[in-house]
Each structure stands twice: as structure tokens, then as C-alpha cells.
């Protein structure tokens, strides 16, 4: 099989080489003929959300590299190489829209892989609608992305209102924590995370000692001092990686150590434990994917195979954002196969692709994927079940609920080393 493909590729390559030599045709002429699948990536490679943005890019890239090793995406028995084009959204909605339009018009991409934040996603959605280009978002966790029922946008990760609240309940059951202090950065995603935590606290009938939002630029000593004065069993923080690192540093410097501390999003990314070293241990987080899950697929193999592959490619262990982004590629592959039309796809084919995406029902190393067809989570994949993880000796380890747990949840936390 592989032999055949490589021979075909070889023949095809020689034909183009000959063609180019003999005709001296400009590259643009070749481009129209070349059987490739052109994919665009709109994500924040700079600006305040560059951290998550770059993680999404790693995930998308890894899929493209792996599928190209096989010769590309298979449609009707032919293989089409994947070519990736990038647009930096600069963490700004307007730049995201510029980037999307550029990728669609200039680079003639047939499909987009989506941004990291809700603001950029919301600004890109109308562009997708304008040109009927489907967009698969490997990482948009804000529930408000799905509220307006975006026809062309699909999301791989369950929105955070789904996962944050439930995790509080799971932790309370596992530990017996009775009081919770919730704080979060006043920015779209982190705020929704904090509100999810708060709702979880109320649903579980726990005592909410404090609910407070703070601006991303604020010094954290006032807020940590207040939490220390309340002294809840569990502190839940909604924020991105930088704020979470600062939070731990500040808590340590003010000698504040709650019995348990839960943070989202960023603790599952390798950089968190890398940068905090021993102080990261014991921090709880939420993840919809971990490398020890029993899922598998044909391209990446099992979840742990993916973990190894990503580690050898990027030098750090992947978190669920990277995994979900790589899995976005699998979703595209599957929908393209069912669509059965060779790229580049014209408008009609792209509309059919959207329908094919809506009918997605596959299992990947990342877990099962199927998109909601109605309701407040329209086009969001809410199949993955969030688990509570704990940083244990620098690694992300699932600790709750019971059936997913690999080790005991450490509670209460020992003093800082």
C-alpha cells in the first residue's frame, strides 16, 4: 500500500518536474493543478493569548505532518497532501478577521482551523459564513461561541460551563471539602470558568466564601490576602497560565496554602509545571483528555502514542488543547472521506462538507467526537468527559472521579516545599 503511494507520488512529482522544466510555467500555474488540500490556521501567535494560540498551532501542525507522511488525506482512494497556511490573529478580533479573509482569498484554503479565544472566534465566524468556509476550532472553550448557532464553526472541546461546575462536585465528593473561594480574571474565558465554578459550588450545596473577579494586570496580593483571611478548604481560580503562575508565587510568598487548589486553564500545559517546579505539585486542574485514556485511532494510535509522538516533536508533553487540535484534523479527514470529492472544494462542495461535519461520529485518540445539532451548545463536541487532574511530580495525573483515577487525590495539600 505505502509502496504504491510512494510510487504514485514519485511519478506525480517527476511529471510536475518535467512539466515545469519543459514549459517553464510559473508556479501559479502548477498551484492550480497540484492535488493538495489547502488548510488555513487562524490563531493568536502573538499578543496576550499567544500561549494558548501557539499550543493550538502545535496540535494542528502535528496532524498535518503525520497525515502527510502517509501521502495526505485519502479521498476516493487518492491521497491529497495537506498544505497549512497561517494567519496570526495577534489576539485581536479585527486581525483575526483580516487573517481569515486573507487565507480564504489569497491562499485559497478550503477549510479553516480555528482560533484560541472566543473574541477572535466570534469575529471570524461571519467571514466563514460570507465565503461558506467551514472552520474546526480545536480550542474554543467559551460557551458564548456557540450561542448564535454558527453554521460553519465546529468546536472540539466541551464549553467550559460544562466542565468547570462538574469538577467542583467531583472534588467535593472525593475530598469532603466544604467551603470554596472562587476567583477569576476578568476576561471572557476565565470569567466564564469562574462562573462555572461558582455555579458548581451552589449546585453541590457547598459554602461559597468569596466570588471575585480581577483585572489581568492587577497585583494579586490583595486578593490572596482576602482568600487567606477567609480560609476556605478549596480555592478555585479561573485564569490563563501567566496569572496562574503568579497566583501560586503570590500565595507562596504570603504563606497561604489552602487544603486544595483548583485552576483552569493552563495547568495541564507542560509549561506550568516546568516553570513552577516543585510548587506546581498538588495543583488540581480540569482536562477532557489525558494520555492514559483508552481511546485510539488509525493515524495517531493510542492516546499514549500521541503523547509520545508530540513529546518527541515539540519537547514537551501535550495537553488536551493540543490533542483536540490534532483531533480536529482527524475530523476533517473523516468528513472529507465521506464527502468523496477531490479538493480544492468549491462553494457547493464546502456546503456539503459542513453537512458531512455535522454527521461526524468517530472515535479518535482524543476520544469520541460528534457535534451537537441544536441547543445552546450547537456544533460543540460535548462527548468528552472532563476529569480532575492533579500535578504529581511534574506530571498531569487524573485523580477523580474514581473510575478515571490513576492515583489518590492528595488532600489536604502538604506545606510548600
Amino acid at each position, binding site marked *: 500500500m505505502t509502496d504504491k503511494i510512494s510510487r504514485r507520488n514519485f511519478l506525480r512529482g517527476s511529471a510536475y518536474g518535467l512539466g515545469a522544466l519543459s514549459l517553464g510555467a510559473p508556479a501559479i500555474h502548477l498551484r492550480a493543478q497540484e492535488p493538495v488540500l489547502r488548510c488555513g490556521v487562524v490563531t493568536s501567535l502573538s499578543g496576550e493569548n499567544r500561549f494558548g494560540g501557539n499550543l493550538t498551532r502545535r496540535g494542528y501542525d502535528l496532524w498535518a505532518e503525520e497525515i502527510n507522511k502517509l501521502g495526505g488525506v485519502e479521498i476516493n482512494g487518492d491521497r491529497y497532501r495537506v498544505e497549512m497556511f497561517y494567519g496570526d490573529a495577534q489576539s485581536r*478580533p479585527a486581525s483575526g*478577521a483580516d487573517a481569515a*479573509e486573507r487565507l480564504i482569498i489569497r491562499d485559497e484554503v478550503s477549510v479553516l482551523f480555528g482560533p484560541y479565544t472566543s473574541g477572535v472566534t466570534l469575529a471570524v465566524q461571519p467571514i466563514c459564513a460570507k465565503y461558506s468556509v467551514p472552520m474546526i476550532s480545536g480550542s474554543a472553550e467559551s460557551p458564548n461561541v456557540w450561542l448564535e448557532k454558527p453554521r460553519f464553526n465546529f468546536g472540539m472541546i466541551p464549553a467550559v460551563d460544562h466542565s468547570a461546575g462538574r469538577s467542583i462536585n467531583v472534588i467535593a465528593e472525593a475530598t469532603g471539602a466544604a467551603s470554596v473561594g472562587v476567583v477569576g480574571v476578568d476576561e471572557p474565558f476565565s470569567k*466564564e470558568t469562574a462562573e462555572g465554578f461558582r455555579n458548581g459550588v451552589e449546585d453541590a450545596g457547598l459554602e461559597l466564601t468569596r466570588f471575585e473577579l480581577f483585572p489581568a494586570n492587577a497585583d494579586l496580593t490583595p486578593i490572596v490576602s482576602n482568600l487567606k483571611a477567609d480560609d476556605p478548604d478549596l480555592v478555585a481560580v479561573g485564569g490563563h497560565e501567566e496569572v496562574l503562575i503568579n497566583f501560586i508565587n503570590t500565595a507562596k510568598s504570603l504563606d497561604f496554602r489552602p487544603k486544595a487548589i483548583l485552576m483552569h486553564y493552563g495547568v495541564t500545559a507542560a509549561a506550568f509545571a516546568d516553570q513552577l517546579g516543585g510548587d506546581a505539585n498538588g495543583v488540581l486542574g480540569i482536562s477532557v483528555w489525558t494520555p492514559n485514556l483508552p481511546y485510539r485511532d488509525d493515524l495517531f494510535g493510542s492516546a499514549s502514542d500521541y503523547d509520545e509522538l508530540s513529546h518527541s516533536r515539540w519537547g514537551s508533553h501535550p495537553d488536551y488543547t493540543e490533542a483536540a487540535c490534532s483531533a480536529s484534523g482527524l475530523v476533517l479527514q473523516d468528513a472529507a472521506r465521506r464527502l468523496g470529492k477531490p479538493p480544492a472544494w468549491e462553494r457547493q462542495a464546502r456546503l456539503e462538507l459542513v453537512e458531512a461535519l455535522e454527521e461526524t461520529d468517530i472515535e479518535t485518540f482524543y476520544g469520541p467526537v460528534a457535534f451537537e445539532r441544536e441547543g445552546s451548545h450547537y456544533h460543540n463536541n460535548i462527548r468528552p468527559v472532563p476529569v480532575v487532574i492533579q500535578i504529581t511530580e511534574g506530571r498531569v495525573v487524573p485523580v477523580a472521579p474514581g473510575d478515571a483515577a490513576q492515583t489518590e487525590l492528595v488532600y489536604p495539600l502538604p506545606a510548600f516545599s
Partner: protein
Amino acid sequence: MVSKPSRRRLVATGLALVAGTAALTALPAFIDPYSLRIVTGVLMWAGLACAWNIVGGYAGYISFGHSAFFGIGAYVTGILMQSGVGMPFLATLPLGILVAVGVAAAIGGPTMRLRGAYFAIATWAFAEMLMQLATVLDITGGTGGLSLPAYLNEFFFYYTMLVVALAVYLGAWYLLERTRFGYRLKALRDHEPAAEAVGIHTTRVKVQAFALSAGITSLFGSIYAYWVTFIDPRSVMGPEITDQMVVMVLLGGLGTVWGPALGATVLWVTNRYIWSEFGDTAIYLPILGLIIALIVLFLPNGLISLLPGGRRGHGVLTRLLRKL
């Protein structure tokens, strides 16, 4: 006093304008939607730079707070176009201008007693304050932002920006170079006490300039909100908006009518070009920074000094300075 441009010069400028307008009107027929988007951006930034130049270049007050007025326009339009209110887009424009002019007139008096860097940073503080306010209010959607109904017609936005930008430039040219208002502004820029001594009501003149500039900025904010369809405090009130306006004016030529248009065009096109060429790494940022630094070092009068007769603005300035 200030020399009036010669008749021949006037005719030449007029012809260039007519030709330019005709070219810009026909442009959408010849370029793809992405390029049209860039040109729409150029028009918006050119208009914004011109608005800033009224206060910064002609009145000599360096405002770091213009993003506040951009945000006011964007939010007035954004809020009034939410499904609950459902106002048509065009009806929101005058309201945005009204609010911005009102705010500018209210804060202009006390704030414009400050000079130089104090004024600059006071306006910045004001803009930051407004941005923080937008994040804690409910009506603005807080940090979650507002989505506007999407109107997917690139020609509409192109021609709206074009009409507004042209009107702004013609108005600015007439007002600043052909009327007493313009002379008064320049006089107070060059020497405020002297201007006052010759009977110019300086406070009134500079607050008028500030309000005018704020109104124009707000107008572009409104159009931007409808164009991009999503606004949040950072993207419409963040300091980056003001920074961009300031840098464009400085690059183009401070205190000249057409300098800001030139600066906006060059900077925005360069920005988008290197962003798209090198967009998959951050290398375009240092390149952009280097370009700005080099222009300052080697073309301190702005790009307009490269054009024939482009230094006229500064000629006027030096002559006036020498007189006082």
C-alpha cells in the same frame, strides 16, 4: 502672515484629488475582497490619523486617549444595534458622535489646562479608566464583548469608509488651512500665551478642536464595530489604537493635512504585508519596529517631506516660530 497657496498649486491639488477620488471609487472593481479589506483599513486609519492630527498636529496637544472616543463610537453603535434595541446602523452614527463630542467637551476644559506630557498621560489615564469602566458595566457585555448583526457586504464598508474619510480630509483641509479657526489653532500651538495676548480665546478654540477630533474618531469607531462585528474593551479602547494613530501621523508628517493619510497608508500596508508574509512567526514585529525607528532617524519630518512641496507645513511653522 501665512501665505495663501498659489492658484496654480490649488488647481494641481484639486486635480490630484479628483483623480484620486475617481481611482478610489473604481478600485473595488479591480481587486480581490482581501485587498479591499486592507484598503478599507487604510481608509479608516487615514481618517483616524487625520482626526488625531487636528489635536496633535495643529493644536499641539498630544492626546494618548483617543482610543476612548473610538470605543465610545463602537459601543454606542454596538449597544444600539443589539437585538433588544435594534436601531438601524446609520441612525446610531450621529448618536455616537454626539456622545463623544459631549464627553470631549466636558473633559476638554479641565484636561487641556495641562500641557505636554501631562496632557498626554492624563488623556491616557482617562482612556484606561473608560476601558476599565467598559469591563465592569453590564450594558457593554463586560469583557465578554458584544457581537453585532453581521452585514457581509464589503462594498458597503469600503464606500462608507471612503466617503467619510474623504469628507474628513476635505473638511480638515478647509477648516485648518483656509479658515481663521485653523490659524488660531496653529497660533496657540506655536505660542499659547502670545496667541492669548492677541485676543484668541484659547480655551474655547482648543476644546473645539478636541471635540471635533473626538467626534470624527467616534464615527470611525461606529463603522469599525459594524464592520468587524465583534467588539470588546481591549479591541476598541486599548492603547494600541491610539499608539497606531500617533505613529501614523508622525511617520506621515505632523501638522500637515495630507501627511496622516500618507503615514496611515504606508504603515498599514507595510504592517499587513509583513504580517502576511512572515505571519507564521513573530519576526514581523521586530521588522516593523525597526522600520519605525529608521524612519524617525532618517526622515524626521515624516514621509511627506519626500513629496515635492511637502514641507510647506513645516515651512509655515518655522516662519511663525521665527516671528514670535
